[in-house]
């Protein structure tokens, strides 16, 4: 005995026009934020400079020119020259690649490790969760920069070690936020429903929980890049990161410090570069958060 199929839910037909996919909704909400769009522009420009910076830099960033020491900004040297006569504009340009690479690598590394532990700790709970969270507490007990210095002290100075140091203290932050999200998500019926269809834990975590945590991770990731760059620059400033003559912003700031009263431009331009970069990533993070916030509706 078969009945005729009665189509229901014709209401969704009329709704169709105004409702769109999560992705399109996100784009629409993001574009509405003017500051966020500016920040996106800044970050895009930085990424572009990261790619092509060395190719377009007018001078060799490490080549000294003792005929042009400490020159003020001019048509030839836009940002002036430093105590070795190196073109500061070229050095800042080349430094973009270093700073961004350090920032991106350390934060992505930290986020990956953090997400793994956050998802598993949140999902499995119990003793494992307790262990992971206590380990985070230990890492949280130290101020970030102090922890980074301690790690550098063990591993020795150098940029790769700065990446590791910054990644290590990013990890607990990501563990906490991802675990928090996981705890909220795992009690949703659709996770129970996924288990009821016979999915294994690994698949539930990867296919159902992980996508749900992306939005928060993305926001923190963007914001952390700014502070990671700042910390990396601070470490280089303290002589624990990039070694001379590498054109790293923090290291440049450090060497320009001695001439602050006589030639402020030596320290100013790398400082400005750090400022713009951090601001760019932080404002982008803010805008992402507002655009991805599920609690806000259009």
């Amino acid at each position, binding site marked *: *005995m*078969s*009945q005729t*199929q*009665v*189509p*229901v*839910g*014709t*209401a*969704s*037909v009329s*709704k*169709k026009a105004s*409702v769109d*996919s*999560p992705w399109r909704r996100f784009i629409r909400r993001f574009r509405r934020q003017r500051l966020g769009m500016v920040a996106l522009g800044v970050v895009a420009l930085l990424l572009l400079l990261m790619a092509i910076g060395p190719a377009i830099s007018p001078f060799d960033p490490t080549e000294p020119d003792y005929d042009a020491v400490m020159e003020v900004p001019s048509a030839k040297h836009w940002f002036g020259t430093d105590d070795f006569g190196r073109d500061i504009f070229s050095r800042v340009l080349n430094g973009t690649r270093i700073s961004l690479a350090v920032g991106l690598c350390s934060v992505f590394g930290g986020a990956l490790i953090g997400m793994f532990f956050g998802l598993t700790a949140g999902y499995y709970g*119990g003793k494992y969760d307790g262990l992971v969270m206590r380990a985070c507490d230990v890492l949280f007990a130290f101020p970030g920069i102090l922890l980074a210095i301690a790690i550098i002290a063990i591993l020795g100075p150098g940029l790769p070690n700065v990446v590791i140091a910054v990644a290590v203290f990013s990890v607990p932050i990501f563990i906490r936020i991802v675990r928090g999200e996981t705890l909220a998500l795992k009690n*949703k*019926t*659709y996770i*129970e*429903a*996924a*288990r*009821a*269809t*016979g*999915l*294994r834990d690994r698949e539930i975590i990867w*296919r*159902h929980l992980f*996508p*749900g945590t992306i939005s928060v991770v993305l926001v923190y990731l963007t914001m952390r890049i700014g502070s990671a760059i700042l910390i990396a620059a601070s470490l280089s400033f303290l002589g624990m990161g990039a070694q001379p003559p590498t054109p790293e912003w923090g290291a440049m700031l450090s060497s320009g410090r001695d001439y602050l009263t006589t030639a402020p431009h030596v320290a100013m331009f790398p400082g400005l570069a750090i400022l713009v970069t951090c601001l760019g990533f932080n404002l982008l993070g803010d805008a992402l958060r507002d655009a991805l916030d599920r609690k806000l509706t259009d």
Partner: protein
Amino acid sequence: MTQNLLNVSELEISFKTESGTVTAVAGVSFALQQGETLGIVGESGCGKSVTSLSLMRLLPNPPGRISGGRIELNGRNLLELSEREMRDVRGNAISMIFQEPMTSLNPVFTIGRQIDEAILLHKSVSKREARALTIEILKKVGIPRPEQIAKDYPHQLSGGMRQRVMIAMALVCEPQLLIADEPTTALDVTIQAQILDLMDRLKRETGTSILLITHDLGVVAEMCDRVLVMYAGQVVEEASAEALFAEPKHPYTVGLLNSIPHADRKADRLPSIAGSVPSLTEMPNGCRFAPRCPVAIAKCHQQNPALVQVTEQHKARCWLAQEGGEARV
């Protein structure tokens, strides 16, 4: 008599709480035949949802634990299966529909992808074939324009539509048993009727057995062949649907039936059952319903009666019913 699809015997489920271990389900037994619809009725906290989750071995553990009994599907004790074997049962031999259609679907994936996932998990088909099956099952559950709806996200559908999608997802692997935990509670009355009709039609087409968990006796009357009434973690009455409605044997069932409004009976105020369900930590010594029972006798407060056959189609856990007494209030 044909072989039972599902045999649950002496199921006991306990929870660890701060005030010690409590037994949420104590010695529940029932059987379900191929193509039969069994209703489990009871108020909140009586153990019906926990029972259904334990059939899938999805009880959150800790704190919950199946502390005794057997759950046999086609003669195979599910409690002895490994986690890997159990995953093969879930979604394949036994499927489940949940109460909340609004949160039962993952908001970040399209409807189609979620049904595809269930198919790909249990059937060796290509993604393209899975999608074809998805479209087919969506059509079967009465979703219009299934090709387009499959590309929609859950928030674009109404509650009734989502519950249809859940049913589609549950039935796509042709399970032998469908557990429906209050499938219509969160829906409007008109949609409720549509969903129940749909489940009933699909059951007849596929021969799936349904275990229907509900607190709505109206749903039971419409859908079920047999009914299990649960109170405080125990089965208090088991009967065919007709027998239960015609001649309830347990005072609790009588109370439940009395509290339903009747179209043909005029009443100023619906009768209710006085008192509330005893806390699991403070179960009375005698019959668990005795403190609220209007017809309780002295014996009821001292000894908990067993669930015994009172007529051919009827079992009840009541001293009065056993002694041929009148359970009617």
